[in-house]
């Protein structure tokens, strides 16, 4: 990936998080402690501030540095989790420009890291409930070699998966303290994941951006 693409990815993600920070915070007020948007905005602002230095690195190193930046800046549960996602994606990044198949492998590696860090699985009403369906979609499209309309399908998968968190009872994160009362609300971290995926797709395939 070229230097400018990484720059634009960081700008795209940081821009989306900044403009949706209040919405993420409101979601977290409903079933958490009301800081998710604030945490994410703090971390991605720092990422944006360091974009030049990060974009100057090879992609794998760039992802690791971005992840470490998030770890050291976001705080809360989402900091170590998003940090691990990026770091472990970085570790799985090939030297050459990644293919779609590489991207799928990288995302799977990042998700494995998130699951291990958070001791969580799909269905627990967390960011994994967006990340995993998206990774599944990407993987199966790559397997079937069907790249037509891939970007719309990814976005659709993220949106649909986010929507499905509404009916889940949280088993991880602060929302889990609510038990049944966590139902009826979107998960904030699932929402930020969907937003980030939207931003990435928007940069990589601008035509299909929401």
């Amino acid at each position, binding site marked *: 990936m070229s230097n400018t693409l990484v720059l634009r990815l960081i700008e795209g993600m940081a821009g989306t998080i900044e403009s949706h920070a209040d919405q993420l*915070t409101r979601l977290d*007020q409903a*079933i*958490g*402690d*009301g*800081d998710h948007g*604030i*945490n994410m905005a*703090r971390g991605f602002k720092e990422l944006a501030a360091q974009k030049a230095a990060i974009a100057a690195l090879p992609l794998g190193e760039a992802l690791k540095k971005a992840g470490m930046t998030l*770890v*050291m*800046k*976001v*705080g*809360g*549960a*989402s*900091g*170590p*989790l998003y*940090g691990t996602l990026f770091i472990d994606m970085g570790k799985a990044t090939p030297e050459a420009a990644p293919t779609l198949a590489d991207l799928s492998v990288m995302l799977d590696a990042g998700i494995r890291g998130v699951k291990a*860090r*958070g001791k969580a699985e799909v269905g627990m009403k967390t960011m994994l409930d967006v990340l995993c369906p998206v990774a599944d979609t990407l993987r199966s499209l790559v397997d079937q070699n069907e790249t037509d309309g891939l970007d719309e399908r990814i976005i659709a998968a993220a949106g649909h998966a986010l929507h499905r968190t509404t009916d889940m009872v*949280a*088993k*991880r*994160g*602060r929302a*889990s*303290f*609510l*038990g049944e*009362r966590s139902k009826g609300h979107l998960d904030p971290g699932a929402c930020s994941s969907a937003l980030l995926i939207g931003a990435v797709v928007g940069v990589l395939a601008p035509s299909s951006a929401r």
Partner: protein
Amino acid sequence: MKKLINDVDAILGESLAGFARAHGDLVSLSQAPLFVRRRAVTPAGQVALISGGGSGHEPLHAGFVGRGMLHAACPGQVFTSPTPDQMLAAAEAVDSGAGVLFIVKNYEGDVMNFEMAAEMAPCATARVLTNDDVAVENSSYTTGRRGVAGTVVVEKMLGAAAETGMDLATLQALGERVNGATRSMGCALTSCTVPAAGGPTFEIGEAEMEMGVGIHGEPGRRRVALASASAIVEEMMGAILADLGAAKGEDVLLLVNGFGATPLMELYLVYDEAARRVEAAGLTVARSLVGNWCTSLDMAGCSLTVTRLDAETTGLWDAPVHTPALRWGC
């Protein structure tokens, strides 16, 4: 939102600057990475205790840094776990070579950030997880119980034990024992307001209260009609004692903790209700602490904490302590 602040983004740094200025004889402040440490160097062979967590619970944790309690505290943003760089810098500053014990309240954010710090730490580390809140159902399928005001008891007793030169593994085991002997439950009459959010975390009616609330304004067991102090204490103490499983005749420590906006007058009234129920259950209130120790910004309400005592832990509680917020025996 009505608060005595300047810029919402600068609150934490400005407040800690004032804290360090007011208590410069006891503590010093590192601004980046952000942590508060004892001014005194950790004596050789002494395990260093480090706690931390989101801010907004003052005096927890920074107010408990000092002789006989914590060696350092890492304040996160309001209600947000600190980041591993803070714990690493604090560990480097206060480790005497005998290792560092992290005291962590059971929230995934704190757990994971301390965990990453432990993975990166250049010294020996161990961890005590506090999870005293009986309001949350204890299920192995979820995150488990939250760490709340009982953390103060753990920090005090471990701080005293560390002063005796106890080694890392023994301290950790003691911490787990104290945490295991401790139960808490809280109740909120109003919401707190996170400064950066600018408005209350939850809506609550004039005649309602949140029973079993967490220390971040997280919803609790259920929303109920505002009740008398007597009825509130009855429910909270009932849940605590049922879960504590203390035998008749045992000594306990009773901590009545205000959430920040509840006056002392009400806390002492609650204390009376609570102590009478403890005694009625055949236990003896051997030690007490009443005040605002583990707060939730400007939330009105309180929590009760009961810790089973034995000769060792009673002695650790009584041992001299000299911190900004807690002081006795010296």
